[in-house]
């Protein structure tokens, strides 16, 4: 059969290298590159990105140098030390423990869980949405009923109940428990876009090209909603920071001796702490505010960049 093509085309194997080189010179940048270029042009967004990434790297590395069990030891002498006294930059809490150090280790734990939660729940949500939207009919119907059921569950309560049932949980099992309940939003969003994509002819063309369903879903359709996925992951990340910290704040998140931004904010539950010893909880609260605002700002700019890369695509 190859001869058939040789016969009717003036290109033979000898030309391959030369033509390939010519073609590479004319290659078009990928969409990821276009989005990145758009993003780079936005100065505040770049600043936010650098702050967020820099901060995360800082706490990840900084936490390595802090001996957590030692840090969590009670030290009566430093009871509620004010900021900038006795070598405590941000003061000390009721146990005489350094707030600054707790903040670093707590940030590491809270951000780490948020990242883990985002990865697990988004992966699951994306896969669920893609499969549900691609296979219409009974599969979709069944998956939608599961979705409905999950939406009915009182999330916070269920998580708290599960946490009390599981005897020895740590940050990993905690992340998995959260993930059970936080994939629905993503899956809904992805499903509705997949429904629209599946109707397009390129999917039919892939089917007639002999490509199997799973390849079509993950290699053909998924790249076409990649910008949506990137934006949704970023926004989920901002949202997910609130999940673990919120539960730790209530006292059902990370175990007691593991500092978290949430447990630090829980210091505010004591009426005298909240006003008199504000430094025990306010830094953690402000950190969450700044972090969430920066991350979702990055998400907003990414969305704009992704949209404009699509516009560029359509314009030609």
């Amino acid at each position, binding site marked *: 059969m190859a001869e058939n093509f040789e016969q009717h085309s003036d290109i033979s194997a000898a030309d391959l290298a030369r033509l390939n080189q010519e073609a590479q010179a004319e290659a078009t940048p990928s969409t990821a590159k276009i989005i990145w270029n758009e993003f780079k042009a936005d100065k505040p967004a770049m600043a936010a990105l650098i702050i967020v990434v820099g901060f995360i790297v800082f706490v990840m590395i900084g936490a390595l140098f802090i001996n957590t069990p030692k840090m969590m030891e009670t030290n009566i002498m430093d009871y509620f030390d004010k900021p900038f006294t006795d070598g405590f930059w941000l003061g000390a809490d009721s146990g005489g423990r350094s707030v600054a150090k707790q903040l670093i280790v707590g940030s590491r734990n809270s951000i780490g869980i948020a990242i883990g939660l985002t990865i697990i729940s988004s992966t699951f949500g994306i896969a669920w949405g893609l499969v549900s939207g691609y296979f219409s009919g009974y599969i979709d119907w069944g998956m939608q*009923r599961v979705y409905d059921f999950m939406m009915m569950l009182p999330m916070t309560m269920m998580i708290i109940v599960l946490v009390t049932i599981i005897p020895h949980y740590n940050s990993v099992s905690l992340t998995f428990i959260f993930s059970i309940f936080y994939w629905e939003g993503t899956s809904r969003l992805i499903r509705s876009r997949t429904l629209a994509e599946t109707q397009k002819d390129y999917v039919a063309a892939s089917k007639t090209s002999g490509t199997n369903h799973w390849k079509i879903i993950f290699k053909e359709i998924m790249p076409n909603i990649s910008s949506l996925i990137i934006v949704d992951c970023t926004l989920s990340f901002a949202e997910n920071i609130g999940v673990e*910290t919120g539960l730790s704040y209530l006292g059902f998140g990370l175990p007691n001796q593991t500092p978290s931004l949430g447990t630090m*904010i829980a210091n505010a539950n004591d009426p005298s702490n909240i006003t008199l010893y504000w430094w025990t909880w306010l830094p953690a609260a402000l950190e969450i505010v700044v972090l969430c605002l920066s991350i979702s700002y990055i998400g907003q700019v990414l969305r704009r960049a992704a949209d404009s890369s699509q516009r560029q695509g359509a314009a030609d």
Partner: protein
Amino acid sequence: MWKTILRRLMIMVPEVIILSILVFLLAKAMPGDPFTGSINPKADPAQIKHLMAINGLNDPWYQQYWNWVVHLFHGNLGNSYQYQEPVTRLIEGRAGNTLWLAFFSMVLTYAFALPMGVFAGRHEGKLPDVIIRFYTYVTYCIPFFVILVLGIWIFGYVFGWFPTTGSVSSDAQGWAQTIGSHFYHILLPGILGALFSTVNIVQYLRSEVIDAKHSDYVRTARSKGVPSKDIYRHHIFRNSLLPIAAFAGYSITGLLNGSIFTETVFSYPGMGLLFVNSISYRDYTVITALVLIFGLLNLLGTLLSDIILSIVDPRIRIE
């Protein structure tokens, strides 16, 4: 219409059954047994065994589940050992506080969101729009409990404008003062809750208004010389009223789920705070009852929204 509602209700039936099984099994899985704490800890193990047997706790789980459901239908949710009173009566006392706060928050949500949405849409791209969009962006991404903590700190403690604990002040006398005090106590949590659940409505209304502004019927109305205030009131606002009403169901479920945080921060004696306390005391009967009730309320909330939406848009009338 009624067909949609009926079919929706029928889908709910298996959901409720599965929820109840799930809740029951979770309760079973919780450490300890229902007698822990209610009888003398030094009691004879043989006696406990006997108690378990006569209460059917050695039966297979589906038998126990069935008994539990039968009790449920008789309004018997068991006893709370922490408070030593029937769970139904305990929750009755707290439910009012929670629902009253959620309802108040929702009313405020609409009171804030409607004018903001229309205003932002009307002045698209101008300063008011930028400010309102910034506000929705901030409220969208900051975790709710952080806002509550900062709110109670600033307005409750630093300025001292609002009470920081309880649902009614103890020295209130007479019904007028009692109601006033109740209201005073839900004011700050209500406002904070409302301010932070406007996002969806504001964004929806804003884009509706912007779309409508460019639609033919509004242009026609304008070229006929209808004053722009009337255009917004009669043409645009009225059209988006029902879809916005549909947000009510979702927003009430959101507020109820947030009530765990609100009530903890404000030490407000509602179902959310009861749940948190019961978990700390391992008061299982109360926990299962509350999870079940919140699940049902969620279901009713989404049902309400779906019904309103199906009135608005016949395409949604379930496949």
